[in-house]
């Protein structure tokens, strides 16, 4: 066994022993979150953005908007696409190159949370500019800059926070020519409510909310769910080789709305910042 593998085994034994006594490595309660800081609208070239620090995890999400053609099977809908990059900046083990399965899963889970929550009203005339012809294509790109555990929740929070402060250009439509002119003036991206991600790690027989790096590395199974501000479950994802029981899922579901509340508040704060933020106060 390579030395890292041995360290991994010892680390897990340590975490597990503490958890058996109901304690976490960083002293938190099983359902406590780490501190969260969001600075919205930090990227000038982006239509919206948010820098998120969640525990030791750092994520930057940015939104770009482009006019383009709708998909043939949804001619009256704007388009959203969510992409993630677990940058080699973020840890010694991440490599550059095309996204691997771990990155693909992260991007798709965040994507589903936003898409299925219907937070973006795709049929809104502001998003579907000329039905069947011209719609806004909303690109949400998430960069993981420091991997301190629980990437799913940090990435999802960055994405929705970036959406919350996104402004797109106003347009003038010439219906006859089917041409759209972009104005310099902007307006907020239409948005219906909000959505948050809640991630739990199961280590041996204990389930914790918001795993930190050590817990993330030692976990047997992961479970994330996306919850809207109306309390609707719009996405779930169990991951990794461990298992959950039906009772465990039930318990998690019962705890979910209490955990979502503080996150939902933070997101609303992000739509209040119209002007570009410098990150002087960001506590890397």
């Amino acid at each position: 066994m390579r030395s890292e593998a041995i360290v991994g085994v010892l680390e897990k034994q340590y975490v597990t022993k503490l958890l058996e006594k109901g304690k976490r490595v960083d002293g938190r309660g099983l359902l406590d979150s780490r501190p969260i800081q969001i600075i919205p609208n930090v990227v000038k070239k982006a239509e919206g953005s948010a820098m998120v620090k969640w525990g030791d995890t750092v994520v930057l999400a940015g939104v770009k908007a482009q006019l383009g053609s709708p998909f043939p099977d949804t001619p009256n809908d704007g388009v959203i696409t969510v992409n993630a990059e677990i940058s080699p900046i973020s840890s010694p083990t991440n490599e550059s190159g095309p996204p691997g399965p771990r990155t693909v899963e992260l991007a798709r889970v965040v994507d589903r949370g936003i898409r299925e929550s219907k937070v973006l009203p795709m049929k809104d005339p502001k998003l579907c500019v000329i039905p069947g012809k011209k719609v806004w294509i909303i690109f949400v790109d998430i960069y993981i800059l420091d991997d301190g555990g629980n990437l799913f929740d940090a990435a999802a929070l960055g994405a929705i926070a970036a959406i919350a402060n996104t402004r797109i250009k106003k347009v003038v439509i010439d219906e006859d020519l089917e041409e759209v002119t972009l104005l310099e003036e902007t307006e907020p991206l239409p948005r219906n409510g909000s959505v948050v991600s809640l991630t739990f790690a199961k280590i041996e027989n204990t389930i914790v909310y918001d795993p930190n790096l050590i817990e993330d590395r030692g976990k047997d199974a992961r479970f994330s769910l996306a919850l809207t501000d109306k309390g609707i479950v719009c996405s779930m994802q169990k991951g990794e080789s461990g298992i959950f029981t039906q009772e465990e899922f039930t318990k998690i579901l019962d705890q979910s709305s209490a955990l979502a509340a503080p996150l939902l508040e933070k997101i609303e704060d992000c739509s209040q910042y119209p002007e570009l933020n410098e990150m002087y106060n960001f506590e890397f």
Partner: protein
Amino acid sequence: MTQEKTSLLLDNGRRLDGRELHELRPITMRSSVLDRADGSCYLTWGNNKIICAVYGPRELHPKHLAKPDRAIVRVEYRLATFSVNERKSPAPRRREYELSKLIKESLDAVLFLEKFPNGTIDVYITVLDADGGTRCAALTAASIALADAGIPMKGFITGCAVGKVADKMVVDLSDVEDKDGQGDMPVAMNHNTGEITLLQCDGEFTTDEVKEGLSLAVDAIGEVYKMQREAVLAKYTQIEGKIDDLGEEEE
């Protein structure tokens, strides 16, 4: 979507294909269908058609990927280009990568990987015709193919999706119910132990609906599990039959 809510159920309360709310589609399973593979399964589930081949346990190349204390499982879930409405490009999409990962993690939970250090167990799944619920069908087929390859297992993984249609929780969504309905919730588990190895959803569910869905899924999985066991047993019966034949010939 408001229109679809009602149109997905008939006036008699049944579903568009005539099923009751909690009724499975017809399912068939055959193992040992391929000559070259170590284990295989051909499974139909409604109009889904899935083929699965297992190779291994075998040596893993390149060797630096091997684990000295156990085998790894590699899963490739693919959609045939013609299995979906719009022809899919042969290059795998992000969805196929994600489902391959989830299926692999589900199978991990029932395999004795520590018995095969440095090895790999390769599971190749191709959806030949897709009609909703392919990941659950794929997992079900993979378990049969693994058993067919003689690989020791703690139990079978069995999958079944539930979902929400016309504000009702229903079992085993068809393609149209998946696309036009209110939500899809695929579940897979080891039926014998109650260990859930896969749970996803997308759509709009209350937490109570999720709980109801989980219960429906557990029941449906029980039904599918019975067929799975029969399919695996059928093979051994068949082999016994062949051995008998062989005996007759030798006489």
